[in-house]
């Protein structure tokens, strides 16, 4: 089964350790290799990208490494891709030109 790694038990996202296919369940593990849960993303997620391992509401903090890494700009469902299209930095915004073609 494919795997995604969640760095801290407080996190609401995990990083895909390999490409995750839509509709196929993936195991979310902690750095200790302990299994946190299984999640099935609706759409595919590229290697290294994040998926939600908990429901995230618009305006909620996105948490990775146990630290706030940004704010959700829309509701994000369990297993959804979490990236520049639905998260904003709380500190410095990067130019849209870096990621425009992704959407």
């Amino acid at each position, binding site marked *: 089964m494919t795997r995604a*790694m969640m*760095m801290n038990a407080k996190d609401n996202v995990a*990083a*895909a*350790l390999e490409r995750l296919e839509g509709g196929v369940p993936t195991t979310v593990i902690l*750095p200790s*290799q302990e299994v946190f849960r299984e999640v099935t993303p609706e759409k595919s997620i*590229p*290697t*290294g*990208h*994040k998926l939600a391992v908990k429901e995230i509401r618009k305006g909620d903090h*996105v948490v*990775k*490494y146990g*630290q*706030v*890494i*940004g704010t959700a700009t829309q509701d994000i469902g369990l297993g959804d891709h*979490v*990236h*520049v299209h639905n*998260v*904003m*930095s*709380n*500190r*410095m*915004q*990067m*130019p849209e030109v*870096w*990621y425009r073609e*992704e959407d």
Partner: protein
Amino acid sequence: MNFLGYERPDGSVGIRNLILVMSAADCSEPVARMIAEGVEGAVAITQHYGCIPGEMVANTLIGVGENPNVAAVLLIGMGCEGMPAHALGKMIKRSGKPVEWISIQELGGTHNAVTKGKQILRDLSEKASGLKRREFDASELIVGVKCGGSDTSSGLAGNPAVGVFVDMLVDAGGSAIMMEPIEAVGAEEPLAARAVNEAVREKIYKMIGNEEKRWSVPGAQMEFMCKGNIEGGLTTIEEKSMGAIHKSGNRTIRDVLENTDRRLEKVPKGGGVYLQDGTHMEPMAMSFMAAAGAHMVIFVTGCGGTFGHAIVPFIKVTGNPDTYRRMSHDMDINAGTILTGEESMESVGKRIFNEVIEVASGKLTLGERLGYDNFSVFRQDPRLEVLLGITK
């Protein structure tokens, strides 16, 4: 653990035995290159901010000349520079190592300068090549840590593995420097929590706050995250920072080394983790770390950065198994084994420590074997610092 190094007159220990042929400004660089060409161990370097480059550039060049990897220095000046070669030379000479300087104008042009320069270099090289390596304790080592071309693997595997190594090095009495002023935005709290005292805690917040001001100016945001970061899955500067600071390990942060137009602080004796102010841009950051006394730099890259440095050997670590597969002749350490589940973080950290001892003792890094000799220095505009209210 011991390594084999070269003792310098000021008591520091070098891991390379280079002779720097340093031109004070880029106008005299071709002559420096002509002099250094074909001489084993000679490296020609310069800076590209013209001949009145300001104090920060001068401080960096002096610090690089003083670096223990450098056995001797030959400075090349045109003769009419605002920052003259002899002034740099006199400062570097305080370290007790052989330092000489020549002026192209004084010697009567290119032919004479090259002839005279080659003559001096031959003497310096003869002395330097007679020096022998001997055993020193690992506590003498000062290792810089840097990341660049980061992707998600850097935060999950590459940087934390280097962090394990840093803890081991510091526990053995050695020192580590991290220079990531911008890639600490959003990661202030965990860094400040490791400060040795309140004063250092305040310095950490101040250094990061100042850098945030510099890069929040409209138009500047282009540079603090790159396209590769986003494609690799990094979403915000906070996420990049949290991944980046892992490479400094978990030990106490002893101080923030000042690096301004006024002075460039060196790593003090006694071991421990230091943050150094400067820039996140890699080759320039390495020159700053070299000027602060670093022997070598460990570089963590997800996408696969392939450069090096003229003065400090550069050990490249990737946490991305695919990058390692595609670029194994560039990557010294494969930390991708953490993500594939083949190896623990601790085991990779130990491998890095072993490689550091080997490289300190003379083993060439892959970058050195490929001939990478990048050298560039960073200049902060003192006028901008005043306009932003950072200095008065």
